[in-house]
């Protein structure tokens, strides 16, 4: 009955706590019925498939039949933007990711993320000061007032996108993030059209910016992507567009949830919150444990097999759709001792929260730094914070899972 279980996981009613369903799912490491996807729910099986070159991220390799849960995958082919490297296989994936990495990380830009630390700290301080200035400490929405604006501002600055345009692309970003969500009730054709339109509009917006940066380059990533001419040559305009769209959207929807899930968890575990308040360095292991315990990306629903692949005694046939249930693998008792316990002192913590293999999270170093700073500062500054609503109201999305609002109250905000 995996299909029924899968529907339950996707069902919004179970958004606040899908973990008992994952536990049920893990009884069958690779489950499948009817036309549905092959659902892989256990740690070692997911990990091995993330490193398996017989698994493709390119939707072109998916057999046309089946997978009604995801809707029609072919939508994207018709849009003006080619797929980003998230949805490509090597060699194109490798080339684009490598070129994108040149201005972002080692070996060519080893200090980029680290050097943003002061800037990030300034943003965090500003946002928390802003909450204090409202004077309304009996009802703070940590999502709207902090966890959303922080990473969005960061990704805008990193890319060199004017912050004041944010309301425009906020709508596109939400539409595109929602398109990742396999909502069985949505009309797939309508949703496909919506995401296509959003992609097109976002593409046109970014095309204008890139054109401008080609003429007047700055030290932002958009300029570097637009003008780079390394050993791999230059990106085509279309490649630069889909790459920057990917970074913009990923920067929107994941770190927000990491920070929000993080504060929610800390408020549920006040002793850990207290320890973090006393020792900001504890943010490092706390964020790692959060990525295991409440990962912002719950599952990867867009892989497909290039050959028959045997996993845990099940042969997944060539061309099948494979869903990798990262959040379920993170709570696999065969891999982690007492997995449902939130334990920042856990030593062995090779979680799947950021994926693994060639598609492992590109923005991981930035996301980690943002979450560490955000959580340690919130812990330090909020006096006696408490949840007003538990569980909070969640976003619709079952893939990019996190609270839509996080209502808290506190007695004061320290300077």
């Amino acid at each position, binding site marked *: 009955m995996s299909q029924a279980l899968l529907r339950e996981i996707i069902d919004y009613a179970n958004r606040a706590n899908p973990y008992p369903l994952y536990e049920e799912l893990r009884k069958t490491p690779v489950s499948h019925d009817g036309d549905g996807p092959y659902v892989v729910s256990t740690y070692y099986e997911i990990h091995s498939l993330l*490193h398996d*070159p*017989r698994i493709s991220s390119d939707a072109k390799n998916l057999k046309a039949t089946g997978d009604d849960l995801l809707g029609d995958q072919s939508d994207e082919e018709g849009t003006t933007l080619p797929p980003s490297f998230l949805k490509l296989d*090597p*060699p194109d994936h490798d080339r684009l990711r490598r070129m994108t990495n040149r201005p972002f990380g080692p070996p060519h830009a080893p200090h980029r993320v680290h050097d943003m630390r002061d800037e990030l700290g300034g943003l965090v301080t500003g946002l928390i000061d802003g909450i204090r200035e409202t004077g309304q400490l009996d009802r703070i929405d940590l999502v709207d007032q902090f966890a959303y604006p922080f990473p969005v501002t960061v990704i805008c600055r990193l890319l060199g996108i004017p912050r004041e345009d944010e309301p425009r692309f906020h709508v596109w970003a939400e539409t595109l993030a929602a398109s990742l969500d396999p909502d069985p009730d949505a009309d797939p054709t309508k949703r496909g059209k919506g995401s296509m339109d959003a992609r097109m509009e976002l593409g046109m917006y970014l095309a204008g910016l890139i054109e401008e940066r080609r003429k007047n380059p700055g030290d932002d990533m958009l300029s570097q992507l637009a003008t780079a001419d390394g050993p791999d040559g230059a990106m085509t305009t279309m490649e630069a567009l889909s790459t920057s769209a990917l970074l913009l959207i990923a920067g929107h929807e994941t770190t927000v949830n990491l920070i929000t899930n993080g504060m929610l968890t800390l408020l549920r575990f006040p002793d850990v919150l207290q320890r973090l308040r006393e020792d900001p360095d504890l943010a490092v292991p706390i964020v790692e444990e959060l990525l295991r315990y409440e990962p912002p990306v719950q599952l990867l629903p867009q892989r497909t097999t*290039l050959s028959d692949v045997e996993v845990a005694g099940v042969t997944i046939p060539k061309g099948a759709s494979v869903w990798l249930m990262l959040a379920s693998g993170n709570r696999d008792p065969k891999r982690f001792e007492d997995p449902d316990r939130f334990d920042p002192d856990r030593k062995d913590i090779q979680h799947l929260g950021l994926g693994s293999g060639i598609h492992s999270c590109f923005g991981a170093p930035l996301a980690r730094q943002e979450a560490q700073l955000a959580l340690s500062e919130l812990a330090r500054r909020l006096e006696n914070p408490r949840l007003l609503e538990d569980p909070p109201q969640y976003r619709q999305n079952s893939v990019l899972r996190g609270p839509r609002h996080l209502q808290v109250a506190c007695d004061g905000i320290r300077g």
Partner: protein
Amino acid sequence: MTGAGTHDGSLERLKREGRIVVVGASLAGLRAAETMRDKGFTGSLTMIGDEPYEPYDRPPLSKQVLLGNAVADHTALPRRRAIDADWRLGVPATGLDMGARRVRLGNGDEVEYDRLLIATGVRARPWPNPEEGALKGVFVLRTRDDGEGLQRALAAGPRRVLVIGAGFTGSEIASACRERGLDVTVAERGDAPLVGALGGVIGAVAAEMHHENGVDLRTGVMVTSLEGDPSGRVRAAHLSDGSTVEADVVVVSLGAQRNTEWLAGSGLGAGPRGIACDAGCRAFDVRGIVTDDIYVAGDVARSPHALFGYQFLSLEHWGNAVAQADTAAHNMLSESADRRPHLWVPAFWSSQFGVNIKSVGVPPMGTEILVTQGSLAERRFAAVYGYQGRMIAAVTFDNCRWLPFYEQQIESTAPFPPPFSTVDRRPEGAKPQPADFPDPSVPTHGPTITLSGYSPADRKMTFTPGR
């Protein structure tokens, strides 16, 4: 204390008040000591090392240290925990009395043990002519001092560096020289760099890397002699093809020799190829009988590997040293039924000319090779080695994230050629080709060594420079 763990309490006594001696203050020695303490060993622990330094990490010595990006004396290994040991550093072990359970030291001391772990590793094979090898400017690279000395010589801006031998270390040295803008010649007896470890198909790729990075690569030649100037400084090398290379720094990179001479005459099964031990790291004596109180770990150990036809493999791999040390330490403090085999799949990495090279399995066992992902021409690929219809090894160039998959395939004796499609499979990956390893009966890689003598105790090695 009885040798074999029995249920008479002797094991508990050993753990409580036994004497454990580790010869080799190395990566393997340190990790083993840490594991023993983790397992509740509270007796006396003696760490013996011939170098004056506490255990340090070697991989940076041929990489970051040579580039001047790290300092040799900053490569000390991080400690996982305190080990509360009696350190005897700067004193080599010179002998072993198995009957009396004593290790003799170079300063005349003797140390008694209840359990002995040998982790003496290997040392760089020196230039066969000691007089030439002693010329100023002639280096080997194995120890921290070697690394520091060579780094200083490179920093002084020599006009040309000659590297003798294009294995992994030699290639890494050449790469570091080029990165520092130094002219470098590499002389390799085989037909290509890395050919002994990875075969001719991959060797050809490595040769291109040398050429493109401006290395003067000479293959199929040997250095026959080194020539010094009147002040005793090296100035030139003469090659077997009649040519001469003028160089003021020469790095001899001809592989390693196992540090077993101190065991000569001890009765332990130790010789030039290492110390034979069982899969549980227990050393064999010369009669082929397993000992119960002497264990071996790291580069100096030679143990049978079930996955590779029970061949006795000795592996000069960082990861192997760590894993084997852990197994040895566990077994030293366990009842026989609780002992574990050392089942590590050989794996190594190298970094040269900006390319990350990694391998799993035993490539030299492979007779065929198939590029399963990427392309040799782009120097970004994964290739698998086949042996009698099964996958026996894999190598990646700048593609290491796929390696766990191939390791798992090798562990499960997957068929070769692989019957599946993969992402990034190119036309060149359609058909296996001969892996092109040098014929083992014709020595092409490294210097020719011949052995004489019948028992490890009186075995002799002779270096033969000519073919």
